[in-house]
């Protein structure tokens, strides 16, 4: 673009202009016909070692190195941090010698799914009720429903523990289920509320107008159109429940160890490479789920 005949000062100016490219780029000398602005004109920082690329690599490394380390050591032949060769011994131990671990995993799944289902049901109903009906305690309920989300988990855990002992509910699977339902509620409520915010009431009238009875309107129009919010609320609740440690720690009892609790107890006696193996299995499982859900999630996003 710049020719050697131009004085250096002009060249500097030219560069400065290029930093803020306008759409009115005049064609360089010698170019005939319509002149298109060169591609990447706006995003100039495409140098290999530019600031943004370096940051990108650093952040990715920071996030994923620990995972790779865990996965790597899961194939180590010995227990220590010293590399002693490839081996599947920890996977063997995970699959065949860790009945306790799998029972904890089963507990976690059972609680995650049951508490999420109840939380989704209650949270969705609460969101619908608060959006569609006007009553006295409306704002009060709206504000208090967010409390479990902002309170430190330790406080919720302790208060739950005090509550359960006070009303003599034995600590165990049931108390964990109640606790998880409680802290999952606000998340479902929030997600469904957000969905309802865009809900167009005239589609209810449209459905009635087109011949749907009240029941058919509920089943074929209202529920399907808020379903994306309900589904994402449910998935969120499952995730939160599966990974919760602090609250579960306070309200669990004998025989109701969940996976996070079990892993924590294993770590107390030194890190067992079985955990590394378990991590890799979980990573694989979640990746598979994410990939297979991608289409499904995309259609949900498209319909919203």
């Amino acid at each position, binding site marked *: 673009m710049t020719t050697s005949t131009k004085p250096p000062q002009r060249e500097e100016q030219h560069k400065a202009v290029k930093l803020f490219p306008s759409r009115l780029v005049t064609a360089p000398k010698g170019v005939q016909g319509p002149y298109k602005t060169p591609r990447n004109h706006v995003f100039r920082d495409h140098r290999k070692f530019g600031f943004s690329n370096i940051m990108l690599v650093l952040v990715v490394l920071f996030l994923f190195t620990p995972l790779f380390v865990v996965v790597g050591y899961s194939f180590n032949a010995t227990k220590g941090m010293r590399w002693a060769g490839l081996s599947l011994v920890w996977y063997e131990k995970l699959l065949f010698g860790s009945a306790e671990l799998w029972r904890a995993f089963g507990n976690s799944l059972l609680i995650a799914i049951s508490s999420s289902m109840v939380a989704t049901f209650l949270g969705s109903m609460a969101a619908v009720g608060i959006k569609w009906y006007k009553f006295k305690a409306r704002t009060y309920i709206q504000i208090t429903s967010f409390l479990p989300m902002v309170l430190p988990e330790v406080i919720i855990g302790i208060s739950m523990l005090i509550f359960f002992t006070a009303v003599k509910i034995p600590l165990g699977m049931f108390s964990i289920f109640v606790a998880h339902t409680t802290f999952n509620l606000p998340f479902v409520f929030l997600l469904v509320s957000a969905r309802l915010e865009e809900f*167009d009431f*005239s*589609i209810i*009238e*449209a*459905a*009635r*107008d*087109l*011949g*749907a*009875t009240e029941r*058919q309107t509920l089943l*074929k*129009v209202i529920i*399907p*159109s808020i*379903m994306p919010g309900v589904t994402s609320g449910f998935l969120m609740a499952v995730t939160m429940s599966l990974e919760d440690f602090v609250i579960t720690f306070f309200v669990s009892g004998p025989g109701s160890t969940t996976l996070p609790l079990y892993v924590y107890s294993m770590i107390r006696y030194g890190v067992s490479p079985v955990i590394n193996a378990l991590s890799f299995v979980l990573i694989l499982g979640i990746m598979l789920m994410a990939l297979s859900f991608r289409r499904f999630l995309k259609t949900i996003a*498209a*319909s*919203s």
Partner: protein
Amino acid sequence: MKGFDVTVKDVSRAYGAFKALDNVSIEIKKGEFFSLLGPSGCGKTTLLRIIAGFDSPDVGSVLLDGRNIIPLPPDKRQVNTVFQNYALFPHLSVYENVAFPLRLKHIPETKLDTKVRDYLHLVQLDAHLDKKPSMLSGGQKQRVAIARALINEPNVLLLDEPLSALDAKLRQNLLVELDHLHDQIGITFIYVTHDQSEALSVSDRIAVMNQGVVLQVGSPYEIYESPATDFVARFIGETNLFPAVVTKCEAYDKYFMTTLEIPELQAEIKVTDYDELKQGQQVSFTVRPEKLKITGHKPSRVGKDINLFSGVVEEPIYSGFQTKYYVRLDNGTVVKVQMQHTNYMDEGPDIEWKDQVYVSWSAEDGYIVEVIDK
């Protein structure tokens, strides 16, 4: 003619102290394109919602083909609605939106498919069957809504300001299409709008409403040329409207030549009218801007039936096919005059800003609006 006739009988509806409808009665004929026209808050949408079944009147009845439909829920009325904001089901594709009413009736799949495709063809949406409503433009959404409302083969189609969310050009096109659809299907259309030009251009008859009351029902031509009240005269199109007092009324040809004294114009003017009016009666006088003639020189023929004023052009507004002049008459009153440019203009309009002009109109071109009670 297909479709049902709709009779609205003494319907009133109040929301607290606000009277949305005050003893409204309208008779809509079979197969008619009938418009409810009025400013926002005049009760036209409330009336439509009562016919559709989303609202019920405090008193009065709505007869569909002679049968009172007020006790029926919306899904049991042979009436379908096209909503202002389309009200498409966001979770269903275009095809499924239109198929929705048929699926409720458990129509067999093959029959359903041909019918849905037919109706989507009718509104020219064959290429968008699988799209979700969120992927459509405003005009396309409205077409889906129309197809969905028609597929049930209703006897009356209600349209609630269906074009108000669209831009001007598209609105014109869809309006013409709606008119074609009406000719093709032949059912009764009840069209709610606040846009007088929409109503004038497609309706068979129009009901002009204001503050919950029907002011006038008539053909577009009747409503434009012979407004029943001051409000109708002002709301439909543009006009020059003055309060006046009858000073003389005498027989003239088959009509009556009435002389009005207009305080605002400080002059007496002449109007021919069908009715004989009493001396001293309070009326309103209206004359449309396009019926006034504007000339740079004094018109040569000044007969008994010509009203003539002189003034100065205060503001010319040129819009291609016409120029609208605001002329300040010598007595201080401003009148609106429209001049159509029917001939090719080489050097622009003859009459320009600050020109001294004459404004005249024939006694036949004015109209007396009787003031009923005020």
